[in-house]
């Protein structure tokens, strides 16, 4: 009897000890609800799962990965109390949340719990920390070294988009591929992103400084459009339906030799699924090319980070911050080193990250954080396809974009 009692007592004690150990590990005090939402890709799965380990002992952690999180986040955080306590966002989506004042300043939480953060991880606006970045992303060049060497070119010879066009023509002439090039040119958001990337390569501003007045109908805009059109002439005629999933599948299927794709796709291309040995062995990454005699890579730098909702209790906000710190810890990075280009302490850059890193090193600009950027992005995404299909002039396409932007910006109260 006493033995059983002892065992029971020891078991209880052990249970208490181990749970308080987990509790101590995360450092969340008292009862709290943590609920996280964000996009759906492998690197974020790793972050959310690590954050989920803070659950237990009065703390609940729920997670929701959703490809359409951009459409859900504003209504979800407008509610009081907000539907989610923490959100993973990118520089593009943070602006949307800040426009409506839906995220809280993290200054006090960073001071209290953020000692392990790199300074570069802190995203500040007007001196206040609004988000904590944990990974970087950018579109950059993917190339097939075997095919380039077949046409007598090396990686050094595809540093500008003009050189990419030369390489594409040689590949076509050699009869290796009719359509060796791909960009994410699906009409809509993807095509808009290609316009923004290429335009940033000119180094020019998209807006009259200090105003919401758009200024893209100029020689920079025309150079941008002409380069996009030259590139898609080496893309399969279906190019207006190409999103990241389509281009990755085409790359893995060995149908492409030169492509501008997201850095977050490198790990998927290099893994041993969905492709052949020959493609994987010969896939290499380089910085996004520059163009038009410029030196800036024609790409935009993105970060992914987390924010904490404004409309939640301070206790939940603190618990969420701690859980997300746990989700973006050095241990998580060590376990998932190659899943992303992490900005977190302890990350060892791998081949998969080389494209993003060199794009950043070559001086690419971050994606513009204007409150009215989304309106221009949408306008570009829907007004460019006519031009690319040869239906109208570059000047007309740019005028259409400006007109579409002006209507949207006026309706949003920016003009």
């Amino acid at each position, binding site marked *: 009897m006493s033995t059983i009692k002892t065992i029971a007592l020891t078991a209880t004690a052990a249970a208490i000890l181990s749970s308080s150990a987990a509790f101590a590990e995360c450092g969340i005090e008292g009862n709290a609800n943590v609920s996280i939402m964000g996009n759906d890709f492998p690197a974020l799965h790793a972050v959310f799962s690590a954050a989920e380990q803070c659950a237990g002992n009065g703390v609940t952690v729920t997670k929701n990965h959703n490809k359409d999180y951009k459409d859900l986040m504003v209504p979800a955080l407008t509610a009081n109390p907000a539907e989610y306590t923490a959100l993973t966002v990118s520089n593009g989506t943070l602006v949307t949340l800040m426009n409506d004042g839906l995220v809280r300043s993290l200054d006090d939480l960073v001071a209290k719990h953020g000692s392990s953060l790199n300074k570069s991880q802190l995203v500040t606006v007007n001196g206040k920390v609004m988000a904590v970045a944990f990974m970087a992303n950018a579109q950059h060049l993917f190339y097939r070294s075997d095919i380039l060497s077949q046409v007598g070119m090396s990686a050094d010879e595809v540093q500008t988009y003009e050189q990419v066009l030369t390489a594409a023509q040689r590949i076509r002439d050699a009869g290796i591929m009719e359509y060796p090039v791909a960009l994410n040119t*699906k009409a809509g958001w993807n095509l808009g992103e290609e316009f923004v990337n290429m335009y940033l390569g000119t180094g020019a501003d998209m807006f009259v400084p200090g105003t919401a007045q758009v200024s893209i109908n100029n020689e920079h805009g025309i150079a941008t459009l002409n380069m996009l059109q030259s590139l898609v002439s080496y893309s399969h005629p279906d190019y207006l*339906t190409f999103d990241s999933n389509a281009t990755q599948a085409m790359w893995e299927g060995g149908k492409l030799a030169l492509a501008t794709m997201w850095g977050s796709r490198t790990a998927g291309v290099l893994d041993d699924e969905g492709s052949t040995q020959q493609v994987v062995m010969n896939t290499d990454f380089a910085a996004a090319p520059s163009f038009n005699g410029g030196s800036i890579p024609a790409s935009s730098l993105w970060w992914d980070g987390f924010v904490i909702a404004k409309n939640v209790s301070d206790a939940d906000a603190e618990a969420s911050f701690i859980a997300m710190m746990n989700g973006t810890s050095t241990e998580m990075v060590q376990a998932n080193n190659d899943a992303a280009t992490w900005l977190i302490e302890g990350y060892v850059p791998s081949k998969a990250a080389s494209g993003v890193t060199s794009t950043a090193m070559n001086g690419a600009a971050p994606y513009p954080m204007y409150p009215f950027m989304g309106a221009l992005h949408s306008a570009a995404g829907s007004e460019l396809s006519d031009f690319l*299909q040869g239906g109208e002039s570059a000047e007309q396409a740019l005028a259409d974009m400006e007109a579409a932007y002006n209507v949207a910006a006026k309706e*949003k109260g920016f003009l």
Partner: protein
Amino acid sequence: MPHRTFFWFIIPSLTAMILFIAFPVISVITQSLHVEHEKVLVSSESCGPFGCKQVTVIDVEATAQLRTDQPLGQFSGFDNYTNRNHLAFDEISLAWSNSENMSMFFNKLLNLPFYKALAFTLTYTFVVTPFVIVLGLAIALGVNALPKFAKGPTIFVSLLPMIVTPLIGSLILFWMIDGEGVIGASIQSLFNDPNLSLKASPALTWMMLIVYGIWHSAPFSFIVFYAGLQTVPTDTLEAATIDGANRWQRIRYVVVPYMKPLVVFITLMQLMDNFRVLEPIVSFASEASATSLSWIIYKDLTSDTQLFGSAAATSMLTIVGVAILLLPVLFRTWRDFSRTAH
């Protein structure tokens, strides 16, 4: 029936209609007459992983004050209806005075998002609707002539296209017509052109969407006609047979006139359904070649920059469009009805 009794009978459905139809429509109309309140912009410094930059941000407090003062936003009259993204009156008059001939004018007209969408929406509606009616009747007549044991399974299989969710059905077709898909690859080998793609040109995309529409809607008209066929009086048909009418004449002079109310019903339903085509455009990623009015609303509500006023205006224009489409059919029915009633 005394007015009082009639009133009490109708009050539940009247309440429901006011609550679930009238109020939402009024709210959409109100929304369509407003744009968002002005945003107060301030310049500030933003720092992140890629360095610091001077940026423009919204002054949230100042803007919140404006929002409290004008919760509906700024009244803009019919601006949302007449701006470039909708009826585009200014752009049209400009295009009219600057165009040398009609084709140039139409080119400019179809460059405007609303008219581009309207062109496809109307083409889709007026091609799919008659095809669906004729094809549905043909299938119904065919199935009706089958031996009894084969009818059940045939009906089930014929209904499948309607059972498949439009979004999924069109996505499946999208992959089938891909160059690597079964239909796409077959067409390529049939025409001996390895680069032929159904997704590449606007004309082929329109055809593909229309074929999908017919495939998806034909079962609806089939099942309605099939039900109607069961009620065609057999004695009239027998009398026609005795009079020497062949199968075609029996269909033309007995079955079709008898089914006329059903034709009107299906026409009404199909005009409404096809006018608000959306799912295949999303699934086929055909934004570049074909858009519809519903798709414009969908885009306004789901993009990074949600445009509620714009979406409300397009919704109202869609309602007006449906009303105009249905008027001739409704008017005809009303005339036939009053003729038989008196």
